[in-house]
C-alpha cells in the first residue's frame, strides 16, 4: 500500500476495489460455463442425488461417450450446423462485399438508391407472420436446408459496415488510376479493393459465422424433419422436451447396453459444451477481430 500513485492515476485503494469487483464479475461471466462442464463430467446418478455442481463428486465420461458413440442424431446435427455455418457465411460474405462496393462509390449514380434500399429494411419489416407466410407459401421453406441459410444472409448492418470501410480505407486515387490503366471494374474490385478491406471482411465473416452457428429460430419456424435439425435446435428440443433424448436411446442399442438408461441430465450439458467448443477454440481470434470490427467506427449509416 506504500507504493505511491503516479500523476493522474487513481489511488491504490480505488485501484484495488475496481480490481476486486472486476475479478468477481469475471468469475460470474464464466461460472455458468464451469458449472456446465462440471455437470457434463459427473455421473448421472450423482446428479440425481446431489444436483448440479461445479466439481463432479463422481467423475464420468458417460455423457460424452453416449453422444459420440450412440447418438447419431447429435453428430448429424453437428454436421448440419457446420454445413449451414460454412456455406451460409461464405455466401453471405460474398454478397455483402459485392453489394457494399458499388454503394461506397461516390460516382455510381444509383448509390443513394441502393443504400436506401438496404437501410430501409433496418427500419421497417413485414413482421414475423408476414415473412413466415410468404416464405412457406411462396418459397416452400418447410424442411429445406435453404430455409436455414437465406433468412440470415446479408445482414444490412454488415453491409453498411463494409461500405463505410471501403469509403474510408480504399483511396479513390487507386481506383481512378487503375481505371486509366484499363482495368475492368471487377478486376479493380478483386485485386485492389478486396485485399485492402481484409479487416472488414474478416469481421463480418465472424459476425456471420456466429450468427449461423447460434441460430435456432429459423429451425423453430421451418424445420420439423429430425434429419435437418441443427445442433442448437437439437439442444432447444432437448431443453423443452426431456423425453426427446430418450428417443435417441431407442435407435441406438449400444448405449442402453452399457449405460442402462440414457443419462439425460448430463448429456444435455455435454451438448452445451460441444456447442460452445468451437467458439472457445476460436475465441482469441474471434475476440481480436470483433473488437477491431467494432472499432472500425462504422456505426453511422
Amino acid at each position, binding site marked *: 500500500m506504500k507504493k505511491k500513485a503516479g500523476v*493522474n*492515476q487513481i489511488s491504490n485503494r*480505488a*485501484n484495488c476495489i*475496481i*480490481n476486486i*469487483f472486476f475479478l468477481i464479475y*469475471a468469475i*460470474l*461471466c*464464466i461460472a*455458468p460455463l464451469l*458449472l*456446465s462442464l462440471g*455437470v457434463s463430467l459427473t455421473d448421472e446418478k450423482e446428479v*440425481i442425488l446431489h*444436483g*448440479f*455442481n461445479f466439481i463432479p463428486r463422481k467423475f464420468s465420461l458417460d455423457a460424452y461417450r453416449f453422444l459420440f458413440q450412440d447418438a447419431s442424431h447429435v453428430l448429424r446435427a453437428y454436421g448440419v450446423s457446420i454445413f449451414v455455418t460454412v456455406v451460409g457465411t461464405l455466401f453471405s460474405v460474398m*454478397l455483402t462485399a459485392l453489394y457494399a462496393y*458499388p454503394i461506397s462509390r461516390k460516382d*455510381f*449514380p*444509383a448509390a443513394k438508391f*441502393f443504400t436506401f434500399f438496404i*437501410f430501409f*429494411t433496418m*427500419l*421497417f*419489416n*413485414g*413482421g*414475423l*407472420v*408476414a415473412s413466415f*407466410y*410468404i416464405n412457406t*407459401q411462396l418459397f416452400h421453406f418447410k424442411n429445406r436446408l435453404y430455409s436455414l441459410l437465406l433468412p440470415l444472409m446479408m445482414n*444490412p448492418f454488415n453491409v453498411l459496415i463494409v461500405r463505410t470501410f471501403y469509403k474510408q480505407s480504399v483511396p479513390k486515387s487507386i481506383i481512378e488510376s487503375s481505371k486509366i490503366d484499363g482495368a475492368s*471494374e*471487377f478486376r479493380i474490385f478483386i485485386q485492389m479493393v478486396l485485399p485492402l478491406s481484409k479487416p472488414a471482411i474478416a469481421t463480418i465473416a465472424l459476425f456471420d459465422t*456466429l450468427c449461423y*452457428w*447460434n441460430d*435456432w429460430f429459423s429451425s423453430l419456424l421451418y424445420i420439423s424433419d429430425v434429419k435437418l435439425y441443427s445442433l*442448437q*435446435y437439437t439442444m432447444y428440443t432437448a431443453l*423443452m422436451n426431456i423425453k426427446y433424448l430418450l428417443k435417441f436411446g431407442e435407435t441406438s442399442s449400444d448405449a442402453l447396453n452399457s449405460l442402462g438408461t440414457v443419462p439425460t*441430465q448430463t448429456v444435455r*450439458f455435454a451438448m*452445451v459444451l460441444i*456447442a*460452445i467448443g468451437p467458439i472457445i477454440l476460436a*475465441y482469441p481470434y474471434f*475476440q481480436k477481430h*470483433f*473488437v477491431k470490427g*467494432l*472499432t472500425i467506427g462504422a*456505426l453511422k449509416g
Partner: protein
Amino acid sequence: MNIPNKTGVTIMKTLKKHFRYYPLYLMILPGFLLILCMRYLPMGGIIIAFKNINYADGIIRSPWCGFDNFEFLFKTKDVLIATRNTLSYNLAFIVLGMVVSIAFAIALCEIRNRFAAKVYQSIFFFPYFLSMVVVAYMVFAFLGMENGLLNKSIFSFLNIDKIRFYAEPKHWPFILVFVNLWKNVGYSTVIYLAAILGIAPELYEAAIIDGASKWQQIIYITLPSIKPIIIILAIMAIGRIFYADFGLFYNVPMNSGALFSTTQVIDTYVYRAMTKLGDLGMAAAAALYQSFVGFVLVITANWIIRKIDSDNALF
C-alpha cells in the same frame, strides 16, 4: 418536335451514364435479388393483417375484413401486457446497460495493470458469443427445481426454502434483466472503451495542469467526448424498443406458461398467437402493430436528435 427530341436526348444521356456502370450493377444484382425476396416480398404479407385468412383460399383470395383483426387484438388484455412488458424490459435494458457499460469502460481505462484490463475485457465479452439456447441451459443449471445449484445445494445449505423459479412469475423481471446485462455488457463496454481511447490525450493533460480531479475529468472530458456514441446507441435502442430478444423471453423461462405475466413480450405473443392459437390474422395484426410503432419510434427518435444536434442524427 423539338421538345420530345430534347427529352429523348436527355433520357439517352442518362441511360448511357448508367450503362457505363453496368459492372457495378452486376455486382449489386445478386444481393439486390436476395434482399428483394427475403426482406421486401414478405412485406406483401402485411395484408394478412387486414384479411380473414385461410390457407385454402390463400393470401389473394381470402376475404378482406378491414380492421377486425386489430379490434379483436386490442380487446384482449394479452397484447397490452405484452406491450407493457416489452417497453419496461427494454427501458431497463437500455438504462442499466448504458450506465453499467460506461462505468465498466471508464474503470477499465483507469486500472493500472494494462494486462489485467485486457484479460477482464476478454472475459466480459464471452457471454455475448453464446446462443440463447445455451444461455437457457446455463440458467436452468442454476435455477432448476430438482437439480439446480441454487435450490439443491445453496438454499438447502443456508436452510432456505426451495424456490420454484419456473412457476413463480415474480422472480423473472430480475432474472431476465440480469441475464440480458450479463450477456450484452461486454459488447457495449468494448464500444465505449474504443470511444474513450479515441479521446485526445491533450484534453486530459490540460485538465491536470488546471488541477482537475479524476471525477472532474470524467464528468467534464470523458462523458462529453463520448456523447455522440451514447446518443447513436440510444437512438438505435429506442428505435428497437418495441422489439424484444425472442430467445431471451422464450427459451430462458423455458416457455413456461405460468410465467407469461412477466415474460410475455410482443415477439413471443406474435409467435404463440401464430403457432399455438393458429390465428394468423390476429398474429399478423400484432406483428404489424409492432413494426409500425417501431418504425414511427425510430423516425421520431432520429427527428428529435436532428433538432437538437444534427451531427449526431443517424440519417
